[in-house]
């Protein structure tokens, strides 16, 4: 091969060194999570609660809530004030006016303190007066900012503005009214401004409900220590209950005891009604394991029965200790809670612990970074034809694939489900499928093309997934019709592999066009190997998308009583099958040669993107559980970019950068049938 002749001597160990550094980093991430400070944050984050119909660790609650409120999961504690001074944001808020900004990209030397998700949640649950001062509410629509008079306030980062609950407090009425107007409008036809209003309303709801999930401090003007309050409650119950009984019987009663108990109980009914988390496990586990309750309900029950749930008193003790920053007392209360849970809720504790571990391992984020590096190295290897870069890129792709795979398997293990259960996991799995196929191609051809396409698709699909995760819990429960591991494991997996293969063919075509037009590096051998790859992958895609589509029809026959209903999602899958079949027939009929194959494969990208996301944006049909609308802009951009590439691909070959070497190329595969 041409590349081998030009190879300069390079140390054999170099690729191994590069991949070794990243493998080490990955291995370190697998260590168990420990808390550094006095307060055992990780221990608290592992405690199980019930939310969204499933048991999850408090750490997941924190992450998903922050994603929905802030759009990311870290809360900065330090930043720059308007006068350029760097420091603690909460202190600045008390002394300085105007807006603040997070660390800028050029401020390398600064390492701002940040709240991790669980730390933030602990503040919200137990010290809301602190969390009210954190910049967590993302508002980015200019019209909404103007309406709230917020243009020159808040914490700015990369053009996005974050605000504290204190900032929003005077405007709650305005936001609520605006939200009510928008709620009457159908989601499909809402303007970006209206969506921003709904998003802010939703974020506020989550925040306000979280604040009263554990204790009622924010509901009491004299907000005192929760542990002490429960002691008061215990003392007030006997006399209070007696006075209530007498009052109802029409006898003279102790008005003071009556009023004291009612005053204590009043916020509990608000907590019972509006609390966000189901924190208190069921007492009778034999009867129903999922009958978790809110703290407020449990407290009201305890007034009636005179007995406090052990989980409630442990949370109260943790809250008191946390407020006083008493690490020892907090640890003791947490231990109480953990041992009670371990004794009664073994299954739930184990599930929450695994998920907590998964949250910190972050396999998809880690593999995303490695894919990016592999992409850069593989592209560079084409420019100077460096063999060590090529080799390193391939090893890095394999390393990232290992992390990617481990993440998918971990998710399957936690959820007890096949890999694809929603749009988020489909993005992860499409990427995975493409990377596997791309790695196989690289292993066969060793020319960097497999590495480039694999790492590019892996990186892009994981970015898409991380944006889809902002919608909330990615391990949500499956609605009745989807609650079948058999069909999720067959139809969904096969059709998703079909998407993956079609995208891979499209990206290979992209490499052909860009390298051919813009560089001189596309020689006849490379061009013909690319054509072979695209042809082979299109065959593979046809197999998977066809079988997947028909399996989908059979599932529909099983659940709705008809095989084919021309539903948008079904049609989307059909479009991919038809397009792949068209490419193959056009090739066999000699109607297209290498370049035509590439342009048709690029159209395949558009067809697949439409089938994957576009049909969900139509907002109609039985499959509407995958509905999302924010990505429309990106779909349009992607489609436009593919059309542009096709236009570039249609430029006559003699004008291509690689025209001199390409002339010798001739179609080598898929000869006419007759």
């Amino acid at each position, binding site marked *: 091969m041409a590349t081998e002749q030009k190879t300069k001597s390079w140390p054999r160990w170099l690729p191994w060194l590069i991949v070794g550094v990243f493998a080490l980093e990955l291995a370190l991430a697998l260590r168990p999570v420990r808390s550094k400070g006095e307060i055992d944050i990780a221990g608290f984050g592992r405690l199980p609660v*019930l*939310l*969204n*119909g499933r048991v999850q660790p408090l750490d997941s609650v924190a992450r998903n809530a922050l994603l929905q409120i802030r759009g990311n999961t870290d809360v900065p504690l330090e930043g720059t004030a308007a006068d350029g001074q760097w420091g603690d944001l909460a202190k600045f808020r008390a002394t300085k006016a105007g807006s603040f900004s997070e660390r800028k990209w050029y401020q390398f030397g600064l390492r701002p303190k940040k709240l991790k998700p669980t730390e933030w949640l602990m503040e919200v649950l137990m010290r809301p007066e602190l969390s009210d001062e954190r910049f967590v509410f993302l508002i980015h629509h200019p019209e909404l900012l103007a309406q709230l008079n917020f243009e020159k306030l808040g914490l700015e980062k990369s053009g996005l503005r974050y605000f504290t609950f204190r900032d929003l407090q005077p405007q709650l009425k305005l936001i609520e009214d605006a939200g009510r107007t928008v709620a009457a409008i159908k989601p499909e036809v809402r303007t970006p401004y209206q969506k921003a209003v709904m998003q802010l309303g939703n974020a506020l709801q989550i925040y306000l409900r979280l604040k009263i999930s554990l204790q009622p401090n924010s509901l009491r003007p004299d907000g005192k220590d929760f542990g002490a309050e429960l002691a008061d409650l215990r003392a007030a119950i006997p006399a209070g209950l007696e006075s209530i009984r007498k009052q109802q019987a029409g006898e003279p009663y102790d008005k003071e005891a009556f009023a004291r108990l009612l005053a204590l109980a009043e916020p509990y009914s608000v907590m019972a009604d509006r609390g966000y988390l*189901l924190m208190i496990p069921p007492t009778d586990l034999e009867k129903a394991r*999922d*009958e*978790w309750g809110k703290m407020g309900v449990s407290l009201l029950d305890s007034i009636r029965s005179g007995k406090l749930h052990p989980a409630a008193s442990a949370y109260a003790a943790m809250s008191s200790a946390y407020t006083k920053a008493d690490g020892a007392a907090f640890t003791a209360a947490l231990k109480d809670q953990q041992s009670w849970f371990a004794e009664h809720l073994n299954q739930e504790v184990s599930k929450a612990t695994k998920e907590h571990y998964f949250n910190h391992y972050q396999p998809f984020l880690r593999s995303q970074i490695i894919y990016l590096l592999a992409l850069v190295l593989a592209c560079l290897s084409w420019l100077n034809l460096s063999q060590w870069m090529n080799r390193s890129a391939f090893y890095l792709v394999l390393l990232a694939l290992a992390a990617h795979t481990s993440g998918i398997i971990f998710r399957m293990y936690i959820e007890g489900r096949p890999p694809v259960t929603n749009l988020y996991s489909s993005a992860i799995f499409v990427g995975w499928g493409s990377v596997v196929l791309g790695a196989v191609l690289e292993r*066969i051809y060793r020319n960097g093309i497999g590495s480039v396409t694999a790492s590019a698709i892996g990186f892009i699909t994981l970015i898409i997934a991380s944006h889809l995760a902002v919608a909330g819990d990615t391990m*949500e*429960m499956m*609605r*009745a*019709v989807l*609650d*079948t591991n058999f*069909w999720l494991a067959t139809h969904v997996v096969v059709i998703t592999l079909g998407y993956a293969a079609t995208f891979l063919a499209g990206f290979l075509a992209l490499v052909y066009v860009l390298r051919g037009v813009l560089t001189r590096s596309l020689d006849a051998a490379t061009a013909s190997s690319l054509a*072979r790859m695209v042809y*082979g992958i299109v*065959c593979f895609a*046809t*197999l998977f998308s*066809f*079988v997947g589509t*028909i399996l989908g*029809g*059979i*599932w529909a*026959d*099983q*659940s*709705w*009583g*008809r*095989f*084919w*209903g*021309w539903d948008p999602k079904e*049609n*989307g899958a*059909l*479009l991919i099958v*038809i*397009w792949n*079949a*068209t490419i193959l*027939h*056009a090739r*066999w*009929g000699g*109607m297209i040669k290498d370049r035509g194959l590439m342009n048709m494969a690029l159209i395949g990208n558009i067809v697949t993107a*439409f089938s994957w996301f576009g*049909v969900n944006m*139509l*907002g*109609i*049909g039985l499959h509407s559980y995958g509905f999302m609308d924010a990505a429309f802009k990106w779909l349009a951009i992607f489609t436009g970019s593919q059309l542009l590439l096709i236009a570039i691909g249609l430029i006559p070959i003699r004008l291509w950068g690689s025209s001199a070497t390409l002339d010798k190329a001739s179609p080598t595969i898929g000869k*006419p*049938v*007759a």
Partner: protein
Amino acid sequence: MMNRLINILTSLQLTVVCLVFSLVLVFIGTVAQVDEGLYQAQARYFKSWYIWGITLSNHKFPIPLPGGYLIGAVLLVNLLAAHAKRFHFSWKKAGILMIHFGIILLLLGQLLTDVLSQETQMRMAKGEMKNYAEDSHTSELVLITAAKDNADEDEVVSIPESMLRKGAEITHANLPFTLRVNKYWRNSSISSKPREGAEDAGATHGPGQGVNILSQPPVTAMDEVNLPSAVIEVAGGKDSLGSWLVSSQSSVKQTFEHGGKKWQIAMRFSRQYLPFSLTLLELRHDIYKGTEIPRNFSSRVQLFNPSTKEQRETLIYMNNPLRYGGSTFYQYQMTNEEMAQQAGVSPSSTLQIVRNPGWVTPYLACLIVGLGLLYQFGGHLIQFLRKRIS
């Protein structure tokens, strides 16, 4: 000339042209569903020979397009002709043959389903037994009286809705009187409260007297239902016995006497009687704790077949229909206790009943095409890898 035609019919060019047209058609037919609705779009784009005028995001374009039937037919002819002309069996091409045979089977199976399949529904309250299914798309006028030899059995004369026209006179061998259709509405709503635009039905007998009726435009969408009404005059010989308002909207019993016999008159959704019965024993509508996400819908029913004395219980739930006697029973809709209480009705479960003699074809076709693709492309792959290794 003939040769040229054969060349065109057997060409891969024709295949590619048809495939491209079908891609365009499926895309347009999908996007048009936003404006036209699933069922109209389905009929206009996919179940048609040609299309004149398409709708894309609220704009109409006067563009002609071949319809689903036309494209399907040409593809079928193309496929058959090509195989007929070039057919010679070889193991190398066995996969291609299987793929195309499977596709033909799939298309023909879908045609069979289009023509032959029937969808009906069975709505049962808890504890209720039923031995018939209802087709909510058509109604029938029925007259019911006790059978001559057995007072426990009913004799039913059913008159399809298609015979009801204003002014029509209906006689039947089993009816000792004539029915006259005084008024007829294809789709209507009846009420005892006065409403704007409503007319007095004008029935002289039964609870339908004084009821007003509002004519509604007929609906064609599959998930909407027409509620026809009519005022029927019963005439024995020359005398009129009076007129009754009947409507699919109401299940009130109306009776009259003629020749010493009691008759019941009603309009109801067309029924198809089954040779067995189902009894709804239990219905469940579970949601995940603390959410609105439905976890499970299920109906526990008892099946009883009087001819074979077969009696058993079975659970019908999402993705798990009951197949019995050539029909398939799917869990369709459910009114659970809470919803029933709010609406003031009793909890009920509706089963969708599909009779589709061609239901097995997609299963077979999928298997054949899947194996064909695997054989063909797997063969390519092995060949390629072998070459690569050597």
